[in-house]
């Protein structure tokens, strides 16, 4: 008899809970809206100073070094550099980390992929990315520039130094290679 009473009690309780879920009482609601979610953007700008004299170009999405004659008739052991500046003009309040990469657009001697080197440093020579061949910059770039750029922050100059291996020889004579240097600004969370 006691067992039967207990069973009935349990069933009654469950029913009561279900009933509670559909219980209606006085209510009212207030609405906040319409809510608008407008996304901003990431916007990185670059300026270049070919002559390294502090006279940099206007901020832009792309730029071209202005030295038509300077980088021709090059030879093993040659090196030269230019300065670049970067600015975070994002509309969103985001900080960007910068990953440099290389996109080789044309070449006539494949050895140049491995005999032309690039290194990026601060103007005092510190904070080097390391000196790597264009092939490495193209295929395995993983070194971010320092510092990162908060919204509206600009930094520079970074010294972009190019050199040709002293171990290279006649296999690269009369050759040329053309490439784009790409700076990818990536949002930091």
């Amino acid at each position, binding site marked *: 008899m006691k067992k039967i009473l207990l069973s009935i009690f349990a069933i009654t309780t469950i029913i009561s809970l279900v009933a509670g879920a559909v219980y209606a009482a006085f209510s009212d609601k207030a609405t906040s809206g319409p809510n608008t979610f407008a996304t901003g953007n990431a916007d990185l700008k670059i300026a270049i100073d070919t002559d390294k004299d502090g006279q940099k170009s206007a901020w832009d999405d*792309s*730029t071209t070094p202005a030295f038509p004659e300077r980088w021709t008739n090059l*030879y093993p052991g040659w090196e030269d550099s230019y300065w670049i500046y970067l600015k975070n003009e994002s509309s969103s309040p985001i900080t960007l980390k910068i990953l440099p990469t290389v996109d080789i657009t044309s070449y006539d001697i494949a050895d140049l992929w491995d005999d032309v080197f690039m290194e990026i440093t601060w103007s005092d020579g510190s904070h080097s990315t390391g000196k790597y061949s264009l092939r490495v910059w193209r295929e395995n770039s993983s070194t971010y520039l320092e510092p990162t750029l908060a919204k509206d922050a600009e930094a520079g100059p970074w010294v972009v130094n190019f050199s040709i291996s*002293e171990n290279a020889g006649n296999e690269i004579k*009369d050759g040329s*290679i053309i490439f784009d240097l790409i700076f990818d600004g*990536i949002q930091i969370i």
Partner: protein
Amino acid sequence: MIALTIAGVTSATIAYFNDTVTVTGVTIAMGTADLESNHTTDNTDSGYDTNSTDLIDLNLTIPGLYPDFEASGNIWLRNISGSPIDLRPYTRLTAATSLNGDDWSLLKDQIEIKITDLNDGNYSLGWQTLEWWNSELRPISNTTGITVEASSDGVANSHNYTIEARVKSDAGNDIQGKSLTGVTWEIIGEQVQ
């Protein structure tokens, strides 16, 4: 466990804002090293051979070798490299008709050659045997080499060399009737670092 795995996959596919800027059309164009030579009978700084594969005929004929015999000739070298590099010339005796024959074996240590750079303080490695000149490349100018078109008139700098040959005074009868013809010298200009 399942929840953790899903979280990991989700993290890997998160996309953040990013933007790129580009330095376009960076061009690196190589030049050349170009050493030219000439041998003219009037020993002038002209008449250079623009084909680097041509052999220089010194017209240095040594008939009837005998101990103490000496002869000499001249060549000019100039640096007209496309790249702004100085070149240090090296030379090596690379061929002769009987380079591997009996006559070579008898003469290689009895004939000596001396090359002097008249435009570089008479730089010279002194009298050396044919065997010595054959064994490896030897520099014939100082370490500064021949500069490239340094003069304001755009004329490439050139160096004048004398090439002297002699038979050792103590050579004996073994060299009688022996000869070397088609003695060829390879000259290489190496970039001065």
